[in-house]
């Protein structure tokens, strides 16, 4: 009895693992194909511009909103944790470090994993179930290059841009939080920021966001492109995209910190 259950359990695990690795393999094949066709981009230039607007411009309000609050809360909490005998300008040092290195890139990515990732999966998924992807192929289009390449490219380019915007807004938010809530003089805060500002920190955050943008858009495209099972399948894949891309982002965050810092 127990050996049967034992076998069933490991059989189940084995099947899950196999289908996971099969899916992973297919992911790398598809995304590899999408990247290999970067050279023929002139055919898909029109799509890239549209996707940059869709992924980039349309996310700016969300990014501004999130970053402003991230900056404010960082400075309020830093002030709260500070020993009384430290100069108040240290809050500025802390805010600029955490915002540039970690908080803006990470939180922007997590929020956009929901917004951008879900949009892409739902869009490509409904194209799959209504046979629009088959129709593209029947018209002799390379559907992966036509649909996936521009989205992944736009994500990889626009996430860093959004992060730069987010960085500025978060620092302003930090300044606001510091002066309004914790009554640190703006010039004190700014001098603190200036003391510990490193270009390399900002660059590191921007590089990270490129990886995040690539990961989120490529996962979302893959998930949408291979939807099965009608509109129910679209909903399921969309949910999976959000979960998968958030997990991937935090793992990547750790790996990149270990390698690049």
């Amino acid at each position, binding site marked *: 009895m127990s050996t049967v259950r034992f076998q069933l359990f490991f059989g189940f695990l084995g099947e899950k693992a196999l289908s996971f690795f099969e899916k992973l393999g297919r992911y790398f094949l598809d995304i590899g194909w999408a990247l290999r066709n970067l050279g023929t981009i002139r*055919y898909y230039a029109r799509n890239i511009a549209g996707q940059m607007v869709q992924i980039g411009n349309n996310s700016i309000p969300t990014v501004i909103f999130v970053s402003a609050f991230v900056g404010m809360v960082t400075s309020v909490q830093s002030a709260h944790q500070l020993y009384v005998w430290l100069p108040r300008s240290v809050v500025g040092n802390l805010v600029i470090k955490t915002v540039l290195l970690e908080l803006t890139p990470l939180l922007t990515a997590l929020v956009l994993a929901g917004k951008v990732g879900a949009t892409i999966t739902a869009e490509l998924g409904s*194209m799959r179930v*209504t*046979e*629009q992807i*088959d*129709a*593209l*192929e*029947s*018209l*002799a*289009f*390379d559907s992966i290059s036509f649909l996936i390449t521009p989205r992944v490219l736009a994500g990889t380019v626009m996430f860093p841009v959004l992060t730069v915007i987010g960085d500025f807004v978060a620092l302003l938010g930090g300044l606001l939080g510091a002066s309004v809530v914790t009554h640190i003089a703006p010039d004190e805060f700014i001098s603190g920021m200036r003391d510990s500002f490193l270009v390399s920190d900002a660059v590191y955050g921007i590089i990270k966001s490129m990886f995040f943008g690539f990961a989120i858009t490529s996962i979302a495209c893959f998930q949408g492109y291979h939807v099965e099972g009608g509109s129910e399948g679209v909903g399921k894949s969309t949910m999976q995209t959000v979960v998968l891309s958030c997990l991937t982002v935090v793992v990547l965050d750790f790996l990149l910190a270990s390698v690049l810092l």
Partner: protein
Amino acid sequence: MIEIRDIWKSFDGKQVHRGLSLDIPEHETTVILGKSGGGKSILLKMIIGLILPDSGTIQVDGREVTTMAYSDLRALRRKFGFLFQGAALFDSMSVGENVALPLRYMPEQKKTDITARIREALRTVGLENTEDLMPSSLSGGMRKRVGLARAIVQTPPYVLYDEPTTGLDLGTADEINLLVNELRDRLGVTSIVVTHDVRSAFVMGNRFAVLDEGKFIAAGTADEIRTSGNEDVRKYIDSSLPMQGEAP
């Protein structure tokens, strides 16, 4: 010439095709009749390599489709127009852009030429001045006709129609029938038509093939099919018998 040989296909353990074989002669319209869920749409998709059979071969102009490299497959697909059962219009694009898509990357085409061809294709399906509408604002029958315009706009040598007249009123269906016949007679197009509309089938078809239980149980001219002694064949065409003797 399309040669389909011994095609087997199953989905999740459900056997759909059990050794299909059929020749599609050139410059003629072959009508495929068969039960709903019998695997007709799947067969059309196999012919242009959108779905692979589990076994069997499909040759188009002497070249094997099922093992073809992707770049060759794309070249082959340019010879085909394909009308999907659900029209499969791109809903992010207007009607005009949908119809223009097959022409988009043909560098030798001039821009004005393309506009004229789109207008002409839409006119032949009875949808003048609809270029700027979005697919979501069209009725089912209109979507079908836009799909048809998209399939024939580049006047390919082969056209595959999946239910071209289903859901259309008799008058519009007749116009579509005439259009298919005109493409064959004027341009020598080779067509495969999948349909449940037996009336249209006998107006359009030169040849007929009956798909039953995963196999073609009969193939031949209208008269051969009509006089078939096979009960299974007759059940697909019984409703058309009053038309016997009428010229199309």
